[in-house]
C-alpha cells in the first residue's frame, strides 16, 4: 500500500459508513426479518434469534462492502436508506400484527 492517495476524510467516511451504516442496515434487517417471521407464524423469540443470527452475517457483509464498493455515496445511500426503509417497514408490519 505504498500508493495510498485517498484523503483522511474519505477513510473516516468509509469507516463511519461501515460501522454506523452497517449497524443501521443490520438493525433494519433484524427488526424487519423478525416481524416478517412472526407474521408467518413463528414464535417471537425464535424469530428474534433467527433474525439476529442472520443479522450478524449481514453486518459482516455490509462492513466489508463499505470498504469494497468503489462509490462511497452509494455505500452510504444503500446502508442508511435500506436500514431506514426496513426499520419503517418493520414498524408498519408490527402495527398490523399487534
Amino acid at each position, binding site marked *: *500500500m505504498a*500508493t*495510498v492517495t*485517498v484523503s483522511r476524510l*474519505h*477513510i473516516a467516511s*468509509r469507516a463511519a459508513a461501515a*460501522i454506523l451504516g452497517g449497524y443501521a442496515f*443490520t*438493525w433494519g434487517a*433484524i*427488526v424487519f426479518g*423478525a*416481524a416478517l417471521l*412472526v407474521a408467518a407464524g*413463528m*414464535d*417471537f*423469540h*425464535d*424469530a*428474534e*434469534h*433467527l*433474525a*439476529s*443470527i442472520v*443479522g*450478524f452475517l449481514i*453486518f*459482516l457483509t455490509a*462492513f*466489508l462492502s463499505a*470498504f*469494497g464498493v*468503489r462509490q*462511497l455515496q452509494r455505500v452510504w445511500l444503500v446502508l442508511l436508506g435500506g436500514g431506514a426503509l426496513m*426499520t419503517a417497514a*418493520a*414498524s408498519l408490519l*408490527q402495527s398490523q*400484527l*399487534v
Partner: protein
Amino acid sequence: MFQNFRLSMAWLHTWFGLVLGFVLIVVFFFGAMSVFDREIDRWSIPASRFEPQPMPSFDKLLRPIFEDMQPLEPARAAMRDHVNGPLPDKFTVPSSWGAYTTHRDPVLSLFVGYEVPNAKLPETNIFALRTVDPRNGTALPDDRLKVGSGFFYPLHYSLTLEWKNLGYWIVGFAALMMLVGLVTGVVMHRKLFRELFTFRPNKSTQRSMLDMHNLTGVVALPFHFFFAFTGLVIFAGIYFPVAHTQLEPLHEQHEVIDAQKTGLPHDRAGVAAPIASVDAMVAEAQRRWAAKGMAGDVGFLSLVHVGDRNGYVSVYRAGTDRIALTGEGIHFKASTGELLREDPPPTVVGRINEFLTGLHLQHFRHWLLRWLYVLGGLLGCVCIATGFLFFVEKRKRQHAKQHSNGARLVDALAVTTVTGMLIAALGIMIANRLLPDVMPAGWPWRGDMEQYCFWGVWALAMAHAFWRTAPVAEGHLAPAWREQCLAIAVLAVVAPVLNWITTGDHLLRTIGNGYWPVAGIDLFMLTSAGIALLAARKLKQRVAVDAHANVTRAEVNHA
C-alpha cells in the same frame, strides 16, 4: 477505495486488525483461561478444594440459607440512586431464589432477588449472593474473589467495564472485526492450503512472523470464526435489543400469550402461601428426565414469586451430555408441588440457537474437547501477536529512517498486551496467595484488592513496555520482550511455590491424589515458565544476530 478490491481488503485487515487486535488478544486469552474457570476458582479459594457435589436437599439445607440471605453493602450502595427515600434495613418480599451448580463445581452459588420498595422503576430487584459448601451449608467468606469465574470470565466478555455495558460493546465490535479479519485475511492470501504447511523459522523475523500468523490463522480458521460469531450471538440481545425497543409491542403480546400457554404466572397474586416439599419436586423432575433417557443432575433450581400463591418452582437439568445449552425445565406449583409444565422439545430455531450458544459456553463433560478449546484460544492469541510483530518488523527500519515513532508505539502496545497481560494474570494469582486472609479494617475487600493488584501490575508492565521499546525507534529489537519473558518465567514459578507454602498443596500431593483442578493450574504455570525462558533465550540470540547485522550493514555503508 484503493486500486482494487484486494488492496482495500488488505488495508482493512491491517488497520482494523491492528487497533482491535489489542482488545481481541485479551478476549482470546481470557476466553481460553475461562475454559478452566472453575479450576482457577479452586486454586484461588483453597477452602473450596474438594470434589464436585450434586445439588443438596432444598428442604433441609437450602431453604434456611435462602431465608437468611440479605443484600450486602455493595449491592445496597448501587441501589441507592434507584430508590425514592431510604432503603429498608431488611428486605422482606423475595421475588426469586436460585441455586446454580455445574459438574465442575464443588461449591454452590445462591442468589435471592428482593422486590425494592419505593423503587423508581417497576420490577426493580436487589440481589443477595452467597456461595456455600453444599455438604453442610457453610458460607464462603463474602470478600473472596473467584478469580476464574468471577474475574477472568467477565474480563473475557466485558473487559469488566460495566458502565453502560461499554465493555460488551467494545468486545462485540472486536468480535465483528475478528470476522472481518478472517474474511479479509483469506481474500489477501488465497493460497490457504499451502499456508497450512509453511513455516520458515530461520528466514527473517518478518517472514517467519507472517508464516506463523498465516499458519495459526488458517489452522484454526473454523474455530476462530465460530467463536467470534457465537460470542456475538450469545449477546445479540445487548447488541440489537430489538425486543425491548422497537419490537416491544410484539414482545409484550408474546409474553402475555406465553404466560397463558405455559401456565407460569407472570405476577404475584398477593396472597401468602406455604412452600411444599421442593425435594419431592426435584425427584419427580429427575424421574421425568430418566424416562426420556437423559442424565439427571440438577444444574439450576429456582423459585419464583417466593411465598405467594402464584409461586412456582423450576428445575433445570445440567446439560453435561450434549453440546447444546439445554435445560429441559420442569415447573411445579410451589404451594402444592403440582406439575405445571414440562418444557416442550425446542423448535428448529431454538435448537440452532442452543447449539451455537452451547458450543461457545461448553457446559458438556468432555476433557479432551475442553483442552482443544484452550488450544484454539491460544492459537488465536499467537495469530494476533504475530500480526503485531509482523506489523512492527515490516515498518521499523523505514520508520527509523523517517524518525517516526509508529513502529515503537505499536511494539510497546504489543508488549503490553502479550507479555504484559501474562504478567498481570500471574500478578493476580500471586496477590491471591500473598494478601492477608482478612484485610485490615478500612481496606477494600480482599477480592477487590486482588483485582487492583491485577490492574496495577498490568500498568507497571505497560510503563516498562513503553520505556524499554526505545530501540525500536532506531530499527532494533525491543529489550522489553526479553525482560518481560524473564519476568513471566520467574512469576510463573513463584505462584505454584506460593500455593505450596500457603496451602500445603504441592504438585507431588495434588498429582498423587489425582486432584487435577489445582495440579493442572500449577503445571500450566510451570510450563508457561519454561516456554517464557526458552523465548527469552531465543530473543537473546536474536539480539546478537541483530547487532552483528547492524555492524555489517554499517561497514558496507562505509566502504
